[in-house]
């Protein structure tokens, strides 16, 4: 499944490293990654593919939320189809 992971919060070193190594542990492939300062927040957006992972969506999503709590960032994983539905005719 294609999913979007958004990481929003205060900028600091090591955010990408922590998120990507967690994804690596769960065999989730990162297809695209971008980061920017948007409306005063550090915002990182990752497009990922979970199809090779042995963990299900809920498990990966929960791991991301938990990692967010550990590093003080708001991390969300959402099925990509909601973004496609909203922004593509």
């Amino acid at each position: 499944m294609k999913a979007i992971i958004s990481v929003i919060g205060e900028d600091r070193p090591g955010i990408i490293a922590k998120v990507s190594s967690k994804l690596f542990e769960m065999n989730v492939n990162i297809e695209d990654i971008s980061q920017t300062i948007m409306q005063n927040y550090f915002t990182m957006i990752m497009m990922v593919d979970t199809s090779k992972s042995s963990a299900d969506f809920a498990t990966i999503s929960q791991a991301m939320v938990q990692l967010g709590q550990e590093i003080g960032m708001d991390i969300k994983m959402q099925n990509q189809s909601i973004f496609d539905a909203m922004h593509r005719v």
Partner: protein
Amino acid sequence: MLSKEEIFETIKMVSSQHLDVRTITMGISLLDCIADTTSETCDRIYDKITTKAKNLVKVGNDIQNEFGVPIVNKRISVTPVSLVTARTGNSIDVAKVLDKCAQEVGVDFIGGYSALVQKGMTDFEKEFLYTIPQALAQTQRLCSSVNVASTKTGINMDAVKIMGDIIKETAYLTREQDSIGCAKFVVFANAVEDNPFMAGAFHGVGEADTVINVGVSGPGVVKVALEKIKDGDLTEVAETVKKVAYKITRVGQMVAQEASKRLNANFGIIDLSLAPTPVMGDSVGHILEEMGLETVGAYGTTACLALLNDAVKKGGIMASSHVGGLSGAFIPVSEDIGMINAVNKGCLKLEKLEAMTAICSVGLDMVAVGGDTPADVLSAMIADECAIGVVNNKTTAVRVIPVYGKNSGSVSFGGLLGTAPIMPINTTSPSKFISRGGRIPAPVWANKN
């Protein structure tokens, strides 16, 4: 490829603008539950609902977690109970079973303790109407509605007369909780069979066995979009609302398809209503104020609402494969902080509210009035709303709460039902008119064939 801005826009809509799917409502036919005895009918109803809706709440929560969009309510609507109990009677027993089913599967409301009497009533249906106050008083999650008029049939004024009496009795029987029973009872003209919203949802007889209807929401998203075009003209305002409505509805469509698939039910419709909640930033009243009114209720309110209602429909229709239900802006007084403030300031009166109901869904909704309001005045309010619906070929409704023992101040029902200021009303007597009974004939344009 999605852009960062697009992804961020969606995330913001949920995190700070209250975008949500207001309800996933499962419509369940009870026609195959009708048996020779009440207890057999009740057993069949219990088995069917607890089987069909067993996973409703779980699926709703799963979709919420996977797509990141809150799904606020999961609800059930059933075949009008007056059709199910016509043979055996004992409708209150069925009411209690429905309440038990709702509790068991974890939904907050179950709708369909209803009767369709727009042209006439059988003896049983008349008897059924008088059970509504007890049914609402003896249950927690049951909702009830009665259709008393339609464009095709005119207005059944005998039923309208009864409505005033049963609203008063419901108010009395639930007096310990500020007459909350009346918040779960709606009187309709031109009721729709696929409405997902409470308290007026029921599962029409023209529907499939099990159907998923979804109500979207998002007044906050519309308001934020309008904040960005402070100096835009009204064409631009309408275009902006259309685009936002399109995006909101696409989310609803996706959720509805996903829910139907996972629950093994037919996809029914998306209801395009902008449904407010009492929290700040989720108000239809504030959208109208963002368009340029000092306060809702000012002259211009009806025009702003007409623009909003039409633009929401135009944007939403292309986004969904099946649009239905009520589809329009809701203006429930107690559930909308902008409307509550306008009433408290004295800017929004019942007469203006009535004018607004002529161009939006649904009608006089969650309006609290003094507990000493006579039944025939309530009936006459209902007759006026029915006239608006029947002549304009649209759904209208009345959900009015004559708060027992109170004639001023406000009452709080808690949760989504909000806080209702008790509105002053014109109590000049319509008594003779209501006591005439009979039918107001269908308007000339009912005769289209």
